[in-house]
């Protein structure tokens, strides 16, 4: 019956909204706790990192993706599988560097910022900075050191939201001293 279907969609929507609204409340609280935007940005990145290092396990379990062979494959998995799975959007991948070690994720709309407006005195705030931390933390757990940062933000008046991803290096497994 259509009523049942409506309830399902409504319910899924509310679950996504719960995340978005919780995130908004968190950012508001951090803005109260820290004097300046830079500190809030750092805090969001750090929290995102902590989430990312645990989220990766959940992601790998749910998605069953195998090991990525190169950064291009990684980009595909991030955009088409991970973002879709957790945020319901599929960013596009553009602006590859000639060396293949940098690319951009373009988010036409960023679900985190629905109904959000940056107040005037927070122009340096990178509202969605948690995402950069999540990406960094998650990829570190699969042996990739990366840098992620926002270069465009619809909250700041840009047409799209753009996250620039840069591959730094492969992280080699280091066995603890004393083990074979």
């Amino acid at each position, binding site marked *: 019956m259509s009523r049942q279907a409506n309830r399902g969609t*409504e*319910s*899924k929507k*509310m*679950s*996504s*909204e*719960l*995340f978005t*609204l*919780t*995130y*908004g*409340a*968190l950012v*508001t*609280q951090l803005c109260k*706790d820290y004097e300046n935007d830079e500190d809030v940005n750092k*805090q969001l990145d750090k*929290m995102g990192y*902590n*989430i990312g290092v*645990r*989220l990766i396990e*959940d992601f790998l379990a*749910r998605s069953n993706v195998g090991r990525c062979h190169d950064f291009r494959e990684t980009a595909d998995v991030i955009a088409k599988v991970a973002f879709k*799975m*957790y*945020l*319901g959007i599929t960013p596009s991948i553009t602006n590859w560097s000639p060396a293949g070690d940098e690319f951009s994720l373009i988010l036409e709309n960023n679900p985190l910022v629905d*109904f959000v407006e940056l107040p005037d005195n927070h122009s340096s705030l990178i509202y969605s900075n*948690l995402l950069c931390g999540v990406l960094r933390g998650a990829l570190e757990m699969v042996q990739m050191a990366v840098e992620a940062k926002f270069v465009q933000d619809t909250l700041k008046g840009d047409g799209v939201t753009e996250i620039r991803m840069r591959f730094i290096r492969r992280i080699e497994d280091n066995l603890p001293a004393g083990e074979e």
Partner: protein
Amino acid sequence: MAVVMLFQFLHAEMVAELGARDTDPGPGGQKRSLSVLEGTGFRAGQALGDRLPRDTPAFREELDVLKFCKDLWVAVFQKQMDGLCTNHQGTYVLQDNSVPLLIPTALGLQYLEDAPKFLAFTCGLLRGTLRTLGFQSLVTSSVATLPACKFQVVVRKSG
């Protein structure tokens, strides 16, 4: 559902971050952390209340508050609440027998004293959502045996 997992991770990280605000190990420190977490939940709850479907029936009878909490639980946490009861005088007790969403399953019985930190946000969430719908309430939580927990909602119609 993956998006609920995302909330779970965010919530756990919020408890770790906001719940460690005061290094004062005494009851004063804990109280402040709980208050911050509850306040964050309240803010989120208010906004959530604003986004509820417009055809949600206005609460004229007590029974609707119960149904509302039940529906909210399913909508938001994707699971049924395990028990709901009321004294028909404005007090509602909501029981959930497995809140892995809120309390990490790794939390053994010896960490029972930390449980309130994991429930403070949801208490605020309930309080905030009810507030937007015109109800002043006091929401408290109690944990007798993990992972079951109870939320007590005392409602006063504000006008």
